[in-house]
């Protein structure tokens, strides 16, 4: 039993941190915000090409580093700490995960090497108006067209880095299907005819979201990634949620650190405010939440790499719900601990607060993930009166060892 990281994994994390701090930390994010293009291309080149992060989870046979979600969790934590404006979540956490989960071996061989080299960025175009993460909310269609082609039509929103990605992975459904049926993901070059896209103005200016309009975009039928349908996409989203959860941990830790540091130096009533229990207890609660969020994200990363698919998906839902709430709470409370200075544009607290808010809805709200968990527990479905086989915590009874520990 070992919950920690190996020396190599720690070294990777330290390298990421060195590069991020070398770029100025949060100051780099502020520069990118002011420039308005949504990307720190210099920083991305360093991370993606020099450090090889673009190919982090891509197998070696496809030109990547062949590492996994345990390493990715450490990287995301660091990116979240400084709000780095790089297309890592979009290209690696979401798009690469989608190609790995849905694409055939041939498709992976065709697409992944360029991603691994950091030459191509990619974005997952999944959500639509309202951002409902339910698969039933996908209305974009993929209609068969003559000559072995498909016409994609619809409007995608909240596409992370969708304004700049070279490659779009578009979730669309076969005509006449509903719910989770008939869904597939298509590989679309961003420059294809009929693709119109623009960056959406967002409250959180550190993460770029785009709207992508597909006006009968014509792609070869073979650009459909595999035939795994919604389950393959859902698996990729679970991976993406683990990545986001780890980013949330990094941000939440930074919020706690900011609050603790300030409470030690800010004096009122002749003493540091951190000596007052009102402040101490607030920060102590944040400490418990940050450490618990970290346990959740690390476990989910481990499960993504080593556990069964069901365990991994379940752990991803838990981490998504817990870390989403924890980050928002930590970011909100650090503003409160800072008082007036925390309400200013100049202080970094609002950047984390806005990132935390946006992250809560990016891949499904905590409430959405809790409902997912409830469904896994067999809640809200008709009770047929039979107790045997009813899902449960799996911890309290039964012959097997606890899931996740077995």
């Amino acid at each position: 039993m070992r919950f920690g990281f190996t020396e190599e994994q720690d070294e990777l994390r330290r390298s990421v941190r060195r590069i991020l701090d070398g770029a100025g930390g949060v100051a780099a994010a502020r520069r990118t915000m002011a420039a308005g293009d949504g990307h720190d291309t210099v920083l991305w080149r360093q991370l993606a090409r020099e450090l090889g992060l673009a190919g982090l989870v891509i197998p070696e046979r496809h030109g990547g580093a062949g590492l996994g979600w345990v390493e990715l969790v450490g990287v995301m934590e660091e990116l979240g700490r400084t709000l780095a404006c790089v297309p890592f979540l979009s290209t690696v956490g979401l798009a690469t995960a989608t190609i790995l989960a849905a694409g055939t071996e041939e498709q992976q061989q065709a697409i992944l090497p360029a991603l691994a080299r950091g030459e191509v960025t990619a974005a997952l175009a999944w959500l639509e108006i309202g951002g409902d993460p339910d698969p039933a909310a996908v209305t974009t269609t993929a209609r068969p067209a003559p000559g072995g082609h498909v016409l994609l039509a619809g409007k995608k929103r909240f596409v992370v880095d969708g304004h700049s990605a070279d490659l779009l992975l578009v979730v669309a459904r076969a005509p006449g299907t509903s719910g989770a049926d008939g869904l597939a993901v298509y590989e679309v070059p961003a420059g294809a005819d009929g693709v119109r896209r623009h960056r959406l103005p967002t409250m959180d200016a550190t993460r770029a979201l785009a709207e992508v309009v597909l006006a009968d975009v014509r792609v070869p039928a073979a650009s459909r990634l595999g035939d795994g349908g919604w389950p393959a996409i859902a698996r990729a989203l679970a991976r993406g949620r683990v990545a986001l959860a780890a980013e949330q941990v990094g941000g939440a830790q930074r919020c706690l650190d900011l609050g603790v540091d300030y409470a030690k130096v800010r004096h009122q009533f002749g003493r540091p405010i951190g000596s007052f229990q009102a402040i101490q207890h607030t920060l102590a609660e944040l400490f418990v939440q940050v450490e618990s969020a970290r346990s959740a994200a690390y476990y989910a990363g481990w499960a993504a790499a080593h556990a069964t698919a069901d365990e991994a998906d379940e752990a991803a839902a838990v981490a998504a719900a817990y870390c989403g709430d924890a980050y928002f709470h930590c970011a909100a409370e650090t503003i409160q601990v800072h008082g007036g200075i925390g309400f200013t544009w100049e202080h970094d607290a609002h950047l984390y607060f806005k990132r935390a808010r946006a992250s809560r809805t990016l891949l499904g709200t905590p409430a959405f993930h809790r409902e997912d968990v409830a469904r896994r527990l067999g809640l809200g479905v008709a009770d047929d009166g039979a107790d045997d086989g009813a899902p449960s915590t799996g911890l309290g009874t039964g012959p097997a060892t606890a899931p996740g520990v077995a």
Partner: protein
Amino acid sequence: MQLRFSAEDEAFRAEVRAWLERQLDGEFRDLRGRGGPGREHEAVDERRAWERALGAAGWIGLGWPAAAGGRGAPLLRQVIFHEEYARARAPGRQGHIGEYLLAPTIAALGTPAQQQRFLPPIARGEQLWCQGYSEPGAGSDLAGVATRAELVGHTWRVTGQKIWTSHAHLADWCFVLCRTSAGARRHEGLSYLLVPMRQDGITVRPIRQLTGTSEFCEVFFDGARTPADHVVGAVGDGWKVAMATLSFERGASTLGQQISFAAELDAIIHAARHNGADRDPQIRQRIADAWIGLRVMRWNALRVLGHGERGELPREALGGKLYWSTWHRRLGELAMEVLGGEAEIIAAAPYALTPLQETFLFSRADTIYAGSSEIQKNIIAARALGLPRGPT
């Protein structure tokens, strides 16, 4: 990152499980689920025999060093034992205070003579202990203890009152934090005495709690006697010893308790599915939240375990008590919401509670005993976050 138990650990688990099943299907077949919070009055004598059976099989003192008569099992094995113990619904322990609090203290800070005198009977399950810390005027502010002891010849004479003393009515011995030199500053002049309970100078009065049952007692010392050498650590150094004991309270037993929490949550899920409470999306959200909280609690525990056997528990372990006690209290509240109107109807007059009602009412104590939530936050603020001391 390696989060699976090894084959050797699994073999140990199987050994524990087989032993428990054999006992609880055989000689002790009536003891499953007996005892524990709210049920301490149940099967008192039979559970005393169970303690001896645990001792004879070598399960007591699993984590103690071999030199102290234990098996020197690593934390992971101890947790496995606790998990299997809970899973088998083995009876509530009577000897846990001696085993998990006093014994490690004596093993670390006691004299060789004290170790030889006190550890073997605890390991055999023959001697039960209680903890004489809290007083009417000294709860969270433990340094305020007023019980005093005076050395008369070769005998300590103890006078004062302790309160909230679990198992005092069953215990053979008590470790008593008391004041041995008058006029000293608060944390000084305290000593940690080992006092036999069965003597004229001690009166035990059970306290009826809001649950209607009595786990806690008041203990009155009126010139109670104990030999001069029954002091752990130096005379006047009792604060340090008392704090060492408290540090053991965060040990292995709390890491395995998620198994019994899970059984409670299972009962709530079961109830919600049967009475249709799960049709309410808010109830579903809260049950899912409880389940998520329990999973995270488990992963927190694995993380502490996965820290390895490198001496002290890692920093993140400081949040454990606040986390589980808060979670458990909320679980009790959720149970009552799920049951709706039926939550109000107890098992039987005059005041027999259902298991979920016990969870609801007992969990109010979780955030008070063993360091209240407020004290936990103070500890986190000071030790984990390095915040400056507050005005005192």
